[in-house]
């Protein structure tokens, strides 16, 4: 009786070991996907009179990776004291072909808000955003609008995309609440 128990125990132990020892291939990691990844912010600027330029801010690996990859940061070169039309486009260039993430954000425009912050806030080198596009409920969405440049000088323009903001009338990311999906900092040169 006792010997039997030991025998069965040994068989069970061996069976366990051998049945678990040969499943190597199954555990190979599938390629992880950072869902809803955005890598690129494009600022499309037009003046309705032939001026049409796209400025790119791109972090190659976007988010969720140990290495950021190549960073592209165009300087926004514009004429002082002029009003332009602007539109923001979001892309995921990790996919091939690149995915236009703007579509999804537009579809959920009530849950999103673009915020434009200029540094300096006013005076030479600053830009001012106005006439922002509205969401389906008539609140601010700001994916497109007008950008008025001030006197010649240098500054920065930070474009922030907020998800589920608590205050859609906000003009700063802090006041908007919610969480940041994108934060792109362009250098601005008005000359």
């Amino acid at each position: 009786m006792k010997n039997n128990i030991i025998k069965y125990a040994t068989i069970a132990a061996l069976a366990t070991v051998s049945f678990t020892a040969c499943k190597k291939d199954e555990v190979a990691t599938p390629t992880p996907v950072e869902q809803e990844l955005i890598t690129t912010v494009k600022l499309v600027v037009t003046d309705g009179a032939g001026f049409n330029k796209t400025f790119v801010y791109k972090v190659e690996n976007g988010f969720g990776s140990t290495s950021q990859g190549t960073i592209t940061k165009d300087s926004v070169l514009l004429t002082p004291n002029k009003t332009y039309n602007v539109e923001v486009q979001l892309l995921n260039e990790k996919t091939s072909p690149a995915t236009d993430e703007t579509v999804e954000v537009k579809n959920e425009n009530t849950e999103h808000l673009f915020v434009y912050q200029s540094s300096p806030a006013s005076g030479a080198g600053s830009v001012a955003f106005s006439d922002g596009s509205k969401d389906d409920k008539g609140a601010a969405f700001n994916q497109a609008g007008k950008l008025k440049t001030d006197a010649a000088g240098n500054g920065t323009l930070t474009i922030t995309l907020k998800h589920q903001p608590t205050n859609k009338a906000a003009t700063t990311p802090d006041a908007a609440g919610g969480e940041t999906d994108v934060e792109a900092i362009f250098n601005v040169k008005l000359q």
Partner: protein
Amino acid sequence: MNRVLIAMILWLMVLVQHVYAQDTCNINIKCRVLETHSGQSLFPVSVYIDEMKREFEADEDGRFEIENACPGVYHIHFHAAGYEHLVKELKISANASLKFSLSHIDKELADVVVSDDRVKTIIQSKGNINRLDIVSNSGKTLGDMLQSVNGVSVLSNGATIAKPVIHGLHSNRIIILNNGIRQEDQQWGGEHAPNIDPFLANNITVLKGAAGVRYGTDAIGGVVLVEPSPVRTMKGWDGEVNLAGFSNTRMGVASATVQHGFKYIKGLGIRLQGTLKQGGNYSIPGYWVANTGTEEQNYSATIAYKKAHFGVEAFYSHFNTKLGIYRGSHTGNQVDLMAAINSDTPLVNAGFSYKIDRPMQHVVHDLAKLKVNADTRAGAISLVYAYQHNYRQEYDIIRGTSDKAQLNLTLNTQTLNLNLEHKPIAGISGQVGIDGVYQENYMQDGDRVFIPNYSSPGLAAYIIERYRLNKLTLEVGARYDYRHYEVFNPEGNNQTIVRYLFDYSNASGTIGLRYKPKPNWEWNATLANAWRAPQASELFSSGLHHGAARIELGDKNLQPEKAYSLNIETAYNVPDKLHAELSLYTQYINDFIYLKPDADILTIRGYFKSFRYTQTNAWLNGADASVKYSVAKPLEAHLKASFLFARDVQQKDWLMLMPADRISGGFKYTFSLGKTFKEVFLGVDVRYVFRQWRIPANFDQIDYPRPPADYFVLDAEAGVTIMRSGHPIYLSITVINALNQQYRDYLDAFRYFINQPGTNVVLRLRVPFNFYGLISKN
């Protein structure tokens, strides 16, 4: 077979010391277990009383005491390695001293006797929560419950996720044994609470300090043993229904257990148990906390067959939980985090709701276990195989409207243990055994980056021996572990899979000394070590920590952590008057793995602070003290204190995120109101937690804000046992944070955002039932 029966004829000696009539439940029975032939005291012996559902353990003198017993008839089981399994019927009517004796398994004996003892007898600093404590805290998570053990604190994410911290160490530095099986549920994560239903447990023991020899790798800080009672195999039915309602979360908890011992198949028993729990958003003083509902559905089944010859037990448990995570703790980047921290009020407003939205966790944990055990002439042999399946889904906040989880992580673990608790050889008793483990971790296609897939086999062998010389007991143990990892890590811009192989092995040892100068006074000293291999998360993690808005980076070159601990403990006990314990500990951890601030990383969401896993040498020193004192007969006072000094030896600085010093105390007044309302009690408890001022000099670079202020919380409780035609019904009301204090705790991840929960009134009802069949099966 006749010989077996003859050998089973055992004698019982009753020495009635003092007899006075009683009908209340305050009878004390002093027991002693002896060896039949030599008359020497027997040790270790585990004792179980069916009707009380209580386990006892005889000390080195073979003594144990049944306290506060009600008059009645009880069935008492004795188990000792190499000895007969004895079941006795016991009529309790008055205080008494009893002697029981167990016989060796006879040489000619063809068959063996079941033993269901669990080895808790190793010399180690211990804390305990019994069935009564468990049911009187029903509805709380395991982590919260363990807080009542001195030296244990809690690492939490608000009110719903709680993990035990033993002497400052937690997660993958402690082990939780669920029904004898090492729980494998991605326990490395700070927001991964143990997936265990506390209603399963009859007894929870916390071993403090390194316990690597018996429990293997990772037992650096200690071990939590969650143990169900043995299944009823005696003919008849019994069970229990527990109900609890919580005002703060409007949470309802219902749990039931039914046990049946079969009439026609002697020794066959079954137990079914299930728990349902649903709670909504919790509230902090002045606010509701958005999206913090909980849901839990758990069940378990045990079937046991105990023959005189051997025993088989099959156990299956299923744990299923859905946990909402406070919406405001999920921030996009560092700027968002700062805005949330600096706001005086919760940034996300909410009312009450049971609905659980993103972000949330859904975790399913299944455990299947098969145990075979037998008593032979050599001792008690047990073979345990277990399979665990842990499936963790994390639902992030997303732009789309998908129902999909962003993380679907599977962890499958198989374990095998063969243990022999041998019969004493020349006065030396002990156990030897081998442990095997095979583990696989994998994610699903399309998941976000988290931890890589890996597979890992491991093997270990151990021996623990004990020798007793008069008042002194010496215990020595050794173990050798080997663990192999094959990891498939996605790397680089294109996330190409790179395969890594790791091999870790190490020896562990333990020396324990127990000295009992008097029967009511004992000293314990344990010198032990333990180690752990770096976890996949520490080696390869490369992602955002949502709650803290920071990027954590692994290091593939991390070495195993090795810990050496010395605990010295003394306990003094005057029955019904005083119980005092003092425990001092020191622990040195070589290559202690921690997160060190690293360069900022630019992402499309802006800059993030990054932290890299690094190693240092840590030195933890501390003390736990507790006193329980009976002021006047019905009034009892208790006081507990716990201190910890955790140093980074290399940096000559304090370590991050260590529990602050704390003191707690209270009174309990117990009285009886006639025959129907018995055991009425009123109690009050206060807990004072100091501000953690032992923080690194560069704290402000690592974390913000500084650790929260000291706080004090008051809980009050009242309860009664209502006797209805001989059956008790237990009713109690507890008020947690009775003064609705606003406070934050340093070990709560939500300390950045919100206060701890406000007042919570808990109503609990417990109804046990019991239908006996005939007397004992013997």
